């Protein structure tokens, strides 16, 4: 008998169907990955299984069989005996999933106490054991620390400790590594794998990252628009996807498609020259002597993990931050406001970078108004031209940002950045918040705009797979310094620095 069997599950929010006709099974000890883009219903499915739908969500139909018992019919009170004990949950965001005012030891102990596992001394011993088991050094001290004293990866380990505390038969991991750096991501996934292998726990892995799913799962469930598009053994699905949608997902995932390198053209002069850039925050050196050059009309990527100083460097290049020392010179850029016509920044989060009260037309027109470019009719024509360039329909003009999808919003942000005719565009994690398919479209758009308009890009990213696809040259940053730089081909095929090798090894690749 299967450990978990979901039959024809349907869930709705406020009466609107979110997922429908979901059927799949998880065998004991097996890893099943549920993949899909945001809004595909994968998290809803996972939450329904563990009985943690939000207050406006309801299971309309179907059965959720855990070892023969139908959880769909259970009250939330009764589910409490299942959660933790039989099904463990590793939540998505390690920074907000722990109580900031309790020590991590107390939070792990809470699970054991609620389910009455031993007296106080036994629980304390078990907490230390668990912390050691999830690979935290000096577990006794960690148990007494508060979440803010731990890094993101350590917090995720604590959450894993909580999930495995009662040795459940099934663990649901909801995007367990999405908020983490690649090297940390790999260690966490390895840890989950090890723990699973030791105890024979089954894992339901919910992820948008097809590469992670491909490398870690036995079976794959591909979801789209609240339905299951395809499911089967991972190798089989990857080798010969039956659904067109799965095939598109596979093609769009940058880690899985080994596209050709973009080699830098010869002969063009530098557009951006950065020399010995240093930024100190109250005695802490966030950026420590960074130098690089970007050839006109090419893309240079700054790669690194969070805290490497890449975003601070980008902010100094666009003059949103003052360097403590060092220089940034951009060929042809003026001073003051004229600088802004020449150099533009596209933010990471398209949900935050557009004023929610403005219409799309106003947003794209804003730089034109600021620089007094053209009269009203000319500006309007220019806005329409820009929207067409970023492949947005004309009817978005009067709409507000919240009516647009993430990908559409990022197109709007790009259109705004291009409005005043800049020559240098700095993209700060500009595709990191987007689904793979949308990400692929935006990357294509950026490439095309670069060809048409001769733009120079400074591309900030933590995602090596994306960088490999878009950039001509790369600088790898670690702890405020550039450890290695060169053409993308050199750096990716023949990495010289230890850290670069570690980063490259951490890119999730499917075990085909």
């Amino acid at each position, binding site marked *: 008998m299967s450990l978990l069997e979901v039959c024809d599950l349907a869930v709705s929010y406020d009466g609107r169907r979110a997922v429908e006709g979901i059927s799949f099974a998880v065998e004991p000890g097996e890893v099943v990955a549920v993949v899909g883009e945001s809004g595909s219903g994968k998290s809803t499915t996972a939450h329904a299984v563990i009985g943690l739908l939000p207050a406006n969500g309801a299971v309309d139909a179907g059965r959720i069989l855990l070892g023969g018992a139908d959880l769909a019919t259970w009250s939330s009170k009764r589910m409490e005996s299942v959660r933790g004990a039989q099904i463990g949950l590793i939540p998505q965001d390690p920074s907000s999933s722990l109580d900031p005012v309790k020590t991590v030891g107390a939070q792990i102990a809470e699970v054991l106490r609620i389910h009455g596992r031993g007296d106080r001394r036994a629980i304390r011993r078990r907490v230390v054991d668990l912390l050691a088991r999830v690979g935290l050094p000096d577990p006794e001290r960690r148990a007494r620390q508060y979440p803010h004293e731990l890094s993101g990866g350590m917090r995720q380990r604590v959450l894993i400790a909580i999930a495995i505390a009662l040795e459940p038969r099934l663990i649901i991991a909801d995007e367990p590594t999405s908020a983490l750096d690649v090297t940390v991501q790999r260690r966490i996934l390895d840890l989950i794998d090890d723990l699973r292998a030791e105890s024979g726990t089954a894992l339901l892995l919910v992820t948008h990252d097809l590469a992670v799913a491909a490398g870690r799962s036995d079976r794959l469930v591909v979801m789209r628009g609240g339905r299951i598009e395809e499911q089967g053994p991972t190798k089989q699905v990857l080798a010969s996807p039956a659904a067109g949608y799965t095939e598109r997902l596979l093609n769009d995932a940058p880690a899985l498609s080994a596209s050709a390198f973009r080699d830098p053209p010869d002969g063009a002069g530098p557009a951006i020259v950065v020399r010995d850039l240093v930024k100190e925050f109250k005695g802490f050196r966030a950026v420590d002597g960074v130098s690089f050059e970007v050839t006109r009309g090419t893309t240079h990527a700054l790669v690194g993990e969070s805290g490497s100083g890449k975003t601070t460097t980008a902010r100094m290049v*666009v003059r*949103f931050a003052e360097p403590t020392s060092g220089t940034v010179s951009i060929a042809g850029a003026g001073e003051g*406001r004229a600088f*802004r*016509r020449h150099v*533009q*920044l596209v*933010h990471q*989060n398209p949900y*935050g*970078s*557009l*004023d*929610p*009260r403005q219409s799309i037309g106003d947003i794209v027109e*804003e*730089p034109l108004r*600021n*620089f007094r470019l053209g009269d009203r009719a000319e500006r309007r024509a220019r806005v329409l031209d820009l929207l067409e360039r970023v492949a947005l329909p004309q009817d978005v003009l009067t709409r507000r940002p919240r009516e647009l999808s993430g990908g559409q919003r990022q197109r709007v*942000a790009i259109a*705004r950045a291009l*409005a*005043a005719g800049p020559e240098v565009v700095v993209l700060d994690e500009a595709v990191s918040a987007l689904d793979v398919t949308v990400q692929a479209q935006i990357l294509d758009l950026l490439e095309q705009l670069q060809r048409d308009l001769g733009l120079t890009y400074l591309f900030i990213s933590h995602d090596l797979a994306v960088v490999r696809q878009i950039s001509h040259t790369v600088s790898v940053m670690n702890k405020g310094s550039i450890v290695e730089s060169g053409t993308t081909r050199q750096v990716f095929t023949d990495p010289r620095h230890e850290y670069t090798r570690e980063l490259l090894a951490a890119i999730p690749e499917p075990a085909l």
Partner: protein
Amino acid sequence: MTRWGGLVLAWFPIALVVLWAVAPGLFTGYDPIAGVPAEKLQAPSADHLFGTDAVGRDLFARVVHGSVHSLTGAFVAVAVGLVAGTLLGLLAGSAGGVLDDAVMRIVDVLLSVPGLLLALTVIILLGPGTVNVAIAVGVGSVAAFARLSRSEVVRVRRTDYVEAAFGSGGRFLAVLWRHVLPNSLGPVIALAALQFGMAILAISTLSFLGYGAEPPTPEWGLLISEGRNYLATSWWLTTLPGAVVVAVVLAAGRVSRSLRRHE
């Protein structure tokens, strides 16, 4: 359904009171100033909904005609607090640094003085009168508006879209006007609705104490104050105008809450 029902119920007294202020003649035929001595101190009846006072004036007519004084007073008070407070908050929040500190410490001092005491101080400086009372109450709420709008401005200034606006070549004041102000106003408007109710209460209190409108002006606080002498024999003289004030203040609070939730 009940949530909306409650909100409709809250708008009703406010709409009614506004109508009273705009067209009092539609609601009562009695003169609010001239009384009929023969009909003094009558209990509420079909003829006199709220009864009559010691000189035989219809109390309902006085409440209806008085609404214009209380409402304009509250309106002026909120306008003073909203405009001055928001400007101060905008200034402090967007300039930052020493200016921010200076403005906010003054606001802290203002907040540490009880509202009524502050209003009385201002009245002593300006002299009594309906408009002066309104201004005094408004000055008392400047600090609350300033603090709220500053916190909103500080929040909005940190957003990516404000940075993007500067990045698009926006000048400081233009960005402030086009992005920071509109996105900061939501909670401030909700506070204004709440303050509207509180201002009616404060103005009535000051009139009750004798700093506001002069008799025989039918101002709500004054009505309650005048009825005080007859509390033992004629309960309606204080109770019914008081109930009207309570209803309007509660309704304003409910409307304010719905505005905040809407944000």
